[in-house]
């Protein structure tokens, strides 16, 4: 029977299965951070349980850490970071703490260390674990009880999800990035469209993307409601992985390549749902509302609730516009911004920073805008500095910070003030996400950079095109 990529990874990790019940799935790698783990370790202690496989677990500090140098002054954040340190020491779990040189956002460091490999199962107490699917792994977020479950057993009982393939044809136009691809996709299928599914992103347009681009797309699978998204591994994947610290070496590398090349969907494999998208028709995207599905092309305008017949839809748009402080029919390019955030597990890898720097080079941030760049990891930061990107940003008036989740979720000192409007390369524009009362517009790194310079949203294709 023909199989999908998902089928192959799923079936090779089923420990046991009973008819009518969930499968017991083996977890190859468990990523841990400070925010969703403390209660799980407490649960283990209360029940007198240990960590089954500390050698398949790894921890870092990302959500709470300040991105300016100095000690953590927030006592709650410090207690949570201290708890992670103590828990990792007690249970023998490797920890890349702040200052170790390998710290960073958990979904940036896994791939960069070579721990994320094709065909693996990966979980983490974080919904953006879907990022790792870019390597052909089955990777999904879990809650704290399931973190505890994996710590204790290295397994999770899971019902088998449905499968959806999103096939991208065409060639990405100039100035249209992977972020625009995924925002456009979410706009199309809706933020609940992927609930119950594992997505496979396929087609020539995906094959043409770098690993960074694929990670941006898989990262936001959860914003379409899907716990996981996957891309079949190929030569781009293998080139990225070769000679990373945790990648197989020598004969083991050759053997791994043989295994990994088999990880793909058969030509005639059946999916529960298929979606086709022509990327040639996509434009740079900007969200206007309070969820990632409330999105429009930069050439478009804020919608008018009176155009919608469905009362629930109309009410949701009215609520979103009231929160966002936007009038119906306003052109997106007329929306002025106060802040720019380039960072997060969606868009803080080296390629994202290069994309933004190319737009920024030789320009100045608008005098009304405060802009910052937060590399996804200490490694990304070093690499960017080796390439001189830090100077490009700083000379333009951007703040250049240390690695962390930063303003993606406002759990650290980097937050929006009430009413502030931000062009952000992160993944969620929910009410209050970046700070209570803050207004978030999701965009690509190039679009965020162009908005920083103009002081309002602009079509990056025109702002860059005008200079070249």
């Amino acid at each position, binding site marked *: 029977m023909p199989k999908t990529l998902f089928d192959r990874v799923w079936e090779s990790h089923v420990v046991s299965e009973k008819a009518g019940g969930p499968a017991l799935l083996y977890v190859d790698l468990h990523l841990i951070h400070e925010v969703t783990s403390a209660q799980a370790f407490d649960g283990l202690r209360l029940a007198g349980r240990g960590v089954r496989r500390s050698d398949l677990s790894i921890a870092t500090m990302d959500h709470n850490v300040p991105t300016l140098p100095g000690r953590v002054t927030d006592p709650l954040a410090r207690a949570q970071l201290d708890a992670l340190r103590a828990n990792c020491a007690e249970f023998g779990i490797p920890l890349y703490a702040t200052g170790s040189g390998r710290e960073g956002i958990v979904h940036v460091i896994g791939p960069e260390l070579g721990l994320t490999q094709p065909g693996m199962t990966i979980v983490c107490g974080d919904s953006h674990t879907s990022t790792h699917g870019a390597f052909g792994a089955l990777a999904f977020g*879990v*809650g704290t009880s399931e973190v505890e479950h994996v710590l204790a057993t290295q397994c999770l009982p899971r019902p088998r999800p449905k499968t959806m393939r999103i096939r991208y044809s065409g060639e990405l136009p100039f100035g249209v990035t992977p972020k625009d691809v995924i925002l456009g996709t979410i706009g199309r299928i809706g933020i609940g469209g992927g609930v119950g599914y594992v997505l496979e992103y396929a087609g020539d347009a995906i094959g043409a993307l770098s690993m960074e681009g694929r990670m941006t797309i898989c990262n936001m699978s959860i914003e379409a409601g899907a716990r996981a998204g996957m891309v079949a591994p190929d030569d781009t994947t293998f080139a990225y992985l070769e000679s990373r610290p945790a990648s197989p070496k020598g004969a083991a590398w050759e053997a791994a390549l043989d295994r990994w090349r088999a990880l793909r969907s058969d030509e005639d494999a059946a999916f529960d749902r298929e979606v086709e998208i022509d990327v040639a028709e996509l434009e740079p995207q900007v969200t206007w509302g309070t969820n990632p599905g409330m999105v429009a092309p930069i050439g478009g305008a804020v919608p008018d609730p009176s155009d919608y017949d469905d009362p629930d839809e109309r009410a*949701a748009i009215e609520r979103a516009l009231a929160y966002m402080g936007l009038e119906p029919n306003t052109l997106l390019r007329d929306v002025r911004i106060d802040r720019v955030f380039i960072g997060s597990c969606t868009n803080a890898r080296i390629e994202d920073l290069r994309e933004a720097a190319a737009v920024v080079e030789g320009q100045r941030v608008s005098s009304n805008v405060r802009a910052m760049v937060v590399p996804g990891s200490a490694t990304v930061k070093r690499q960017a500095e080796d390439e001189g990107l830090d100077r490009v940003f700083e000379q333009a008036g951007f703040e250049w910070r240390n690695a962390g989740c930063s303003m993606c979720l406002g759990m650290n000192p980097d937050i929006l003030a009430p009413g502030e409007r931000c062009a952000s390369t992160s993944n969620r524009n929910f009410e*209050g996400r970046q700070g209570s009362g803050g207004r978030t517009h999701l965009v690509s790194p190039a679009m965020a950079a162009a908005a920083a310079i103009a002081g309002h949203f602009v079509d990056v294709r025109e702002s860059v095109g005008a200079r070249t």
Partner: protein
Amino acid sequence: MKAFRSLTARAVVLDRPDVDTDQIVPKQFLKRIERTGYGEFLFYDWRRDPEFELNRPGSKGARILVTGPNFGCGSSREHAAWALSDYGFEVIIAPSFGDIFFSNAVQCGLVPVTLPADEVKALMTAVGEGGAVTVDLEAKTISDPAGRVVPFEMDAFVRHSLLNGLDPIAQTMGREVEIAAFEARFPSPVETTSL
């Protein structure tokens, strides 16, 4: 985990789609390292509005929440389920749920009931301002204040776990022989301790 069989209690209607976990419990409360005490942070920003549904007199003491589709979308924070439970909710009824929220709810004994969208709308109308609803997990029915008895579906394993208040970790640990056999056959490709 507490076992759940049946509950008759006041319900409150929150007729909004896509209520995300950032609204259910905002990020600034995720720094605590305890599992309890999140009820006061539930819908923290929305509750500052005196007109918010949970602030109305008719919703006092409600233990059942009736809400719109895709409830609990967004982050994996189990704090959202903890906050709902700690506030006093035992059942959430919606046309659909965010995947991770659904799992988290079941893990802590908060009962997520899925009904077709039109049934949820009818239930919302019947509940009005604080009507009582009976959720019978054994019979898989919901009885509303208008006297209607609506059947619902639930995954058999999920229902069994909720009805019996099972500890899922203990269940998995009971399969040690199979887990050890799997590990012997398929060693994991990476080792985090040797980097």
